[in-house]
């Protein structure tokens, strides 16, 4: 893989994770500012809020650390366009697109259902 290709591929993988991290940050801010939690969006307030904050925080940490993506970028930099690196990239792509499909369901069911109407 040429140097330019390595940079573009690594940047694309990084951008994918950047989007995930941005989403989680916005979700955290939105939760804290939610008017229905005006009297304190607080993990100590209820079982629901405790689990919600734990879930959002852990997911944020999970996306921010992004072990698989970091390893992938490392492999691209170390081995270039190895056949195995290509296969791994393809697998990462399949995994990422499968996550997308799960999120298509999560968005309306979790975030819209309660707030519409």
């Amino acid at each position, binding site marked *: 893989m040429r140097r330019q290709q390595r940079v573009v591929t690594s940047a694309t993988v990084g951008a994918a994770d950047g989007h995930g991290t941005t989403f989680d940050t916005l979700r955290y801010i939105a939760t804290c500012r939610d008017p229905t939690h005006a009297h304190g969006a607080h993990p100590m307030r209820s079982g629901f809020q405790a689990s919600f904050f734990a879930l959002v925080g852990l997911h944020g940490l999970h996306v921010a650390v992004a072990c698989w993506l970091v390893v992938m970028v490392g492999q691209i930099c170390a081995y270039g366009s190895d056949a195995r690196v290509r296969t791994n990239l393809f697998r990462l792509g399949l995994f990422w*697109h499968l996550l997308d499909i799960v999120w*298509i369901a999560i*968005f*309306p069911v979790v975030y*819209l259902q309660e707030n*519409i*109407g």
Partner: protein
Amino acid sequence: MSDRTHELCTYAIGYILSLVLTAAAFGMVHWPSFGARAIFGTVLALGLVQMAVQFRCFLHISLNRSSRHDLQLILSPR
């Protein structure tokens, strides 16, 4: 058309279709023109269409002879 071009076209078409379907769902909620239940139902339906698009364009799962075997692997309960 070469394999590479064909592959890129598939991803591009999937991307555009996904964007259009997402924009349609957001638009329906942002500018509501009928009842909440109907809007929610339509959003779910748009989501199902988008799932089909992404399975087809991004995950290479279709009803073609060559890929039907993979589809069976996913759908079969075993």
